[in-house]
């Protein structure tokens, strides 16, 4: 039996179909979930894809966080279901307090779209088991509100508990996709909750799953194969 991975569509979600494609390419079944439905259709894991839900009006993720589907997802996530928030999905997760901190406008105030080098800091989450700690991957980044912020205490705690999952890799020149693109504190690109089942990151693994399209690299597939392995082995 293949794993069923739910992909949520909020009004204004953009990357839902891309995420479904990535899920399929990884060998799982993609199950569309609608923001108004509390029912998760018995999925084994959920992805909150990128986009501009509710136009990112007020704050990115602020309105979606109160949708019916999120009420169920919050409960399930707390019970251990794997949840991945990509970009806008990450913003929803912080607004929902499933992950600590908040996202601010990029420090150069521009939307940035580029192929971004990331360092995987831990393979100990549901979504990164197929990577090695210290591994460098390259996946697209595209956002305007991507500057990760939290207070010092929270940041120290994240570091101490090994919950920083991805950092913007800083070798080489920024133009090659290296370097911190938005002023995120401690170069944080992605984090996880204490249990390691909920992961959020700003860059887009679902746009790096085919050799021809986008960046022409498939580093993003590992996210989906990771969770698949975990679900199949469970």
């Amino acid at each position: 039996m293949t794993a069923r991975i739910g992909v949520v569509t909020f009004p204004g979600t953009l990357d839902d179909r891309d995420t479904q494609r990535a899920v399929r390419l990884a060998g799982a079944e993609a199950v569309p979930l609608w923001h108004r439905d509390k029912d998760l259709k018995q999925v084994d894991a959920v992805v909150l894809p990128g986009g501009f839900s509710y136009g990112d009006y007020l704050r990115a993720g602020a309105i979606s966080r109160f949708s019916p589907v999120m009420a169920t997802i919050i409960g399930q996530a707390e019970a251990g279901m794997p949840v991945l928030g990509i970009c806008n999905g990450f913003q929803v997760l912080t607004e929902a307090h499933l992950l600590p901190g908040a996202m601010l406008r990029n420090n150069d105030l521009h939307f940035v779209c580029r192929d971004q080098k990331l360092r995987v800091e831990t393979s100990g989450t549901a979504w990164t088991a197929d990577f090695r700690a210290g591994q460098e991957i390259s996946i697209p980044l595209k956002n305007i509100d991507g500057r990760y912020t939290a207070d010092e205490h929270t940041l120290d705690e994240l570091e101490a508990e090994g919950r920083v999952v991805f950092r913007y890799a800083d070798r080489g020149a920024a133009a090659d996709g290296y370097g911190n693109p938005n002023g995120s504190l401690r170069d944080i690109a992605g984090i996880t909750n204490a249990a390691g089942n909920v992961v959020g990151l700003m860059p887009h693994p679902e746009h790096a799953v085919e050799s021809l399209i986008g960046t022409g690299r498939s580093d993003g597939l590992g996210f989906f194969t990771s969770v698949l392995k975990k679900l199949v082995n469970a």
Partner: protein
Amino acid sequence: MARVVVDVMLKPEILDPQGQAVQRALPRLGFAGISDVRQGKRFELEVEGPVDEAALARIREMAETFLANTVIEDFNVKVES
């Protein structure tokens, strides 16, 4: 040092998608009784020296030419007490 606040709001006849999105979300969150929401910008300026009429006139000019685009926005300048 004095603080001058410049509020910039979209003109009433101009669509305010942000305010509308907030207003539409309120009932779902259990807040009733808000018939309209408009969202604008608030600038807090720390002014060196005295905030006299001359200073305020300059700030009004700054608001008119730079902080607001008066084709679509109105602004309001006030000294914070």
